[in-house]
């Protein structure tokens, strides 16, 4: 499977999805007006990846800002990863947040409570 590598903009995050390495990374700002358009190829990629997924998958989410329309799309990405986890794969979502960013921590905790997949909350120094 070809990896996905997308450079971030003022409104969209850096994306790095690598099937061979079992790495999924979303980093930066996710505030596009049309989030579905941006996230659909990523969700489709994960559908294909589910068939060939590595035994161990590391997911790193380091978001500075995300809007409410992205929040739903990010949940869709996580639901695909949850389906892979249910196939007995070792999947961990590393949710990074800056040390005084309680809103970002709470957002990670919300996803954690909705999904049945291991989350690791990682505080970063500013």
């Amino acid at each position, binding site marked *: 499977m070809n990896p996905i590598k997308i450079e971030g903009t*003022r*409104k969209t995050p850096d994306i790095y999805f690598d099937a061979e390495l079992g790495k999924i990374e979303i980093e930066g700002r996710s*505030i596009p*007006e*049309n*989030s*579905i358009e941006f996230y659909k190829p990523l969700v489709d990629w994960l559908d294909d990846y589910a068939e060939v997924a590595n035994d161990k998958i590391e997911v790193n989410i380091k978001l*500075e*800002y995300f*809007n*409410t*329309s992205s*929040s*739903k799309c990010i*949940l869709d990405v996580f639901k695909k990863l949850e389906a892979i986890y249910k196939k007995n794969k070792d999947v961990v979502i590393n949710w990074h947040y*800056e040390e*005084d*960013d309680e*809103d970002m921590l*709470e957002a990670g905790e*919300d996803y954690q*409570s*909705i999904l049945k997949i291991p989350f690791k909350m990682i505080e970063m120094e*500013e």
Partner: protein
Amino acid sequence: MSFSVEKWYNEYMNKPSVKYMGEISDDKVSYILDTVEGKLEEWEIKPKAIRKVYNVSVEALQNLYHHAFKPPKEIDNCSKFAGYILEQTGENEFKLITGNFIDLNQKRKLQNRFDQINYLSTNEVRALYKLILNNSEFSFKGGGGLGMIDIARKTKHKLGYKFYEYNENIFFFEFNVVIS
């Protein structure tokens, strides 16, 4: 005396502010957000407050982008028209105000929506946010009202609103919230 949008906009003149009134497009939303970010850095606001103001501004502006109506033709010819004002009211305290034209039907819906959100406690607002987030019926356009719930959640303040009658069918809707 009938409502004047210029008068409404010019009321917010005294405090340090970021102001915009006119057409709301994808590019204009980006322009306002960049201006807000630049000003907050210029005012040497703490990063935590910058994040909060930026987040709330994103939701408020994208709400306007998706829901603002065509204004009365004597006001402007554009398809979507709105005002955005960010005032610094304290060291790390701000008031965000937006305004846009709506019809009578929208007025009723908005009033109900805001009263419902304002009735909830902080924990109930968070629970409602999660419920809508995890509901597949949620409209991506923001029809689920997630944007306003997110603002209530992040600011932990009640959502303020006012309706100014423009004529019997058209109202000017002002939204305001404190960010501290």
